[in-house]
């Protein structure tokens, strides 16, 4: 057992209001530089929709992630053998057209235009060439356009559905959409790392954050095509790739990443989990339908004495183990099993999990009144506007059982809360719902608490990074005293007296 600690994340989609505050927080801190304007390390997509970059989920187009025949595990784009002939031209590189050409407006025209009969206008100009451009698409162009023939109908998850189900999703009065906020998943088996010819990408051992060493990156762009979530981006000014760093400078000082911190709906949770890295290669070759369970298998119980002993033996600090025991992500994913990884069939094992949304349901009527008492307590799940198969394509590699379990449990929690607070549902009905959803009353109360009432400290359980200890062991903390000041990127030669 090779126990490691991994910072993992959880987004509760039922709480996301699609306000994009997270995207803006991230953009203002990290990607407002030239060359990064088009990058959205954090973005919020409307689903069903085509996403960003357009149709990123369609790996027949982008060739991201891994492929396995049960025996071998290969990078879909360019692995070791294929990088040599393809080094001069990356055959699977998305181009700017798949994202969008960044632009601004020529605001000066508003002030400098000569007097005339018409109001002056600020025309859009490209942020790359400075020339006027005809804006055809931009980030989030399909915001809130659930049901649209251009966007929702071209969602790669919907394309796998039967024509009937597809019709259902775009039919008037059955339209549905929800939001899918996305950041780098800091995967357990990251394809970007495996594909980088220069070895610039790496997983940080202590916390599993995937980072990209700018000094080592030579701009071969292999990571951009390899990442199935398209969360590594090519900076066209520096010629290097960049990606979400999970705000590690904030994490190291005990603060949640900016997108987490700014989340208005408080949908985001963060905590570390312990996992067994030894299982990775075997588990990554399992069939698609088993992958959700396989990933849960890899995540270890931090209360198990054997796991704790193995973690200690591996140099994981007591405080980090303790933090894993309080991790909200561990509860949602492994204990309650109501959170699922996005597109686990890409086999990178994303460590960002989603609580799938209980979509607007078609209500049932009995005698002209809303029915909430009859036998089919969970009928609403099957009658949800988005077909179960659609959500299963997104969150459980097509395994509807895992998805139904997560939704049923959430519904049972709702029913039990309704019984407790509104009182129009009998205790027997609530108990039956809980039993059917494999949920106890204590568990339901706990899910309710962590979903609806959790404080910041409960949502973000950040393990101490103890960089001060780590650094003291390899470096003398006094070494640079009085030599390098604030703001130098390369330290000047220290003058020793």
């Amino acid at each position, binding site marked *: 057992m090779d126990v490691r600690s991994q910072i993992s994340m959880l987004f509760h989609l039922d709480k996301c209001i699609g306000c994009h505050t997270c995207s803006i927080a991230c953009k203002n801190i990290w990607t407002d530089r030239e060359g990064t304007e088009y990058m959205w390390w954090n973005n919020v997509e409307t689903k069903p929709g085509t996403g960003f970059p357009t149709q990123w989920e369609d790996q027949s187009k982008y060739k991201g992630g891994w492929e396995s025949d049960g025996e071998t595990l290969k990078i879909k784009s360019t692995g*070791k053998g294929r*990088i*040599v002939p393809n*080094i*001069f*031209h*990356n055959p699977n*590189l*998305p*181009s*700017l*057209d798949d994202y969008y*050409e960044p632009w601004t407006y020529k605001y000066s025209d508003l002030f400098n235009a000569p007097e005339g009969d018409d109001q002056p206008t600020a025309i859009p100009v490209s942020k*790359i*060439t400075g*020339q006027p451009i005809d804006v055809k698409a931009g980030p989030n162009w399909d915001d809130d356009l659930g049901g649209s023939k251009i966007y929702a109908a071209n969602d790669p998850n919907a394309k796998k559905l039967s024509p009937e189900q597809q019709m259902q999703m775009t039919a008037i009065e059955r339209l549905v959409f929800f939001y899918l906020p996305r950041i780098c998943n800091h995967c357990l*088996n*990251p394809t970007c*790392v*495996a594909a*980088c*010819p*220069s*070895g610039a*990408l*790496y*997983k*940080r*051992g*202590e916390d599993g954050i995937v980072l990209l060493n*700018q*000094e080592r*990156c*030579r*701009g*071969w*762009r292999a990571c*951009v095509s390899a990442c199935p979530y398209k969360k590594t981006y*090519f900076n*066209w*000014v*520096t*010629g*290097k790739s960049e990606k979400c760093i999970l705000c590690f400078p904030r994490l190291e000082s005990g603060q949640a990443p900016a997108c987490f911190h700014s989340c208005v709906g408080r949908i985001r949770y963060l905590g570390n989990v312990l996992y067994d890295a030894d299982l990775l290669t075997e588990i990554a070759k399992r069939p698609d339908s088993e992958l959700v369970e396989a990933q849960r298998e890899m995540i270890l119980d931090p209360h198990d004495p054997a796991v704790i002993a193995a973690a*200690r*033996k*591996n*140099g994981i*600090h*007591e405080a980090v183990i303790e933090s894993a025991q309080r991790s909200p992500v561990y509860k949602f994913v492994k204990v309650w099993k109501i959170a699922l990884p996005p597109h686990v069939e890409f086999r990178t094992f994303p460590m960002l999990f989603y609580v799938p949304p209980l979509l607007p349901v078609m209500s049932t009527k009995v005698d002209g009144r809303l029915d909430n008492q009859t036998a089919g307590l969970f009928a609403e799940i099957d009658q949800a506007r988005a077909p179960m198969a659609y959500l299963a394509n997104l969150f459980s590699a097509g395994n509807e059982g895992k998805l139904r379990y997560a939704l049923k449990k959430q519904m049972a929690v709702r029913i039990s809360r309704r019984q407790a607070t509104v009182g129009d549902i009998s205790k027997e009905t609530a108990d039956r719902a809980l039993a059917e959803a494999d949920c106890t009353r204590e568990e339901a109360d706990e899910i309710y608490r962590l979903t609806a009432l959790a404080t910041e400290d409960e949502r973000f359980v950040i393990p101490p990074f103890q*960089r001060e*200890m*780590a*650094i003291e*062991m*390899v470096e003398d903390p006094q070494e640079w005293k009085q030599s390098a000041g604030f703001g130098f990127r*390369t330290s000047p030669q220290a003058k020793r007296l």
Partner: protein
Amino acid sequence: MNDFVLFGVLPYVATVIFLVVTIQRYRQRKFTYSSLSSQFLENRQHFFGSVPFHYGLLVVLAVHFLALVAPDWVLWWNSDPVRLWAGELIVLAFAVLTLVGLVNIALRRAIHPLARRVTSAGDWVVYALLLLQVASGIGIATLHGWGSAWFATSATPWLWSLARMAPDVSYIAPLPWIVKFHFVNAFLLIGFFPFTRLVHVLVMPNQYLWRRTQVVVWNWDRSRIRRVDGA
């Protein structure tokens, strides 16, 4: 005298600049050690420039290198006219491939607005020098045939005399002007090399082929942490 400056001094100047700046840039400005790709901004034409250019150039350079280190073998190969013809034509074909790729690259950089945006003055110097080099090389191959034969008996001993620090330019004195131009331009390329995008040649990711698939970097020295904890 002129010959001595061009073929006895310039090579050393170029080589020294190459070595000093290459090392200095790697040590102090490692971040800049690559070639700014524009494939992301323009994906289609990129293929028709970059791929033929690189593959053509690799073969042409390999043959030059062969003539330098194994001139006897090259002369033996040429002793059969069929082999001589075949060799000359194949290498010429790759040289033409290089030229076609290079012209495509330069045109694309000049015409496509996004690609032009990321093309620097240094890039244009590189393209100009390379164009002259490849064009003069093809000119030599067509005007003064059997280059593989006379290269081995003139340029190779000259280059080796340079390597022995005893430059003897008499080997190449009788060669036509276009050949001499090819030599001078080659050393100009070497001299400009460390200042330009060409440095990407030196950071070819060869270690990728035998490294472990996943890369994990530890900030902590795990064994020492263990000792401190007493676990």
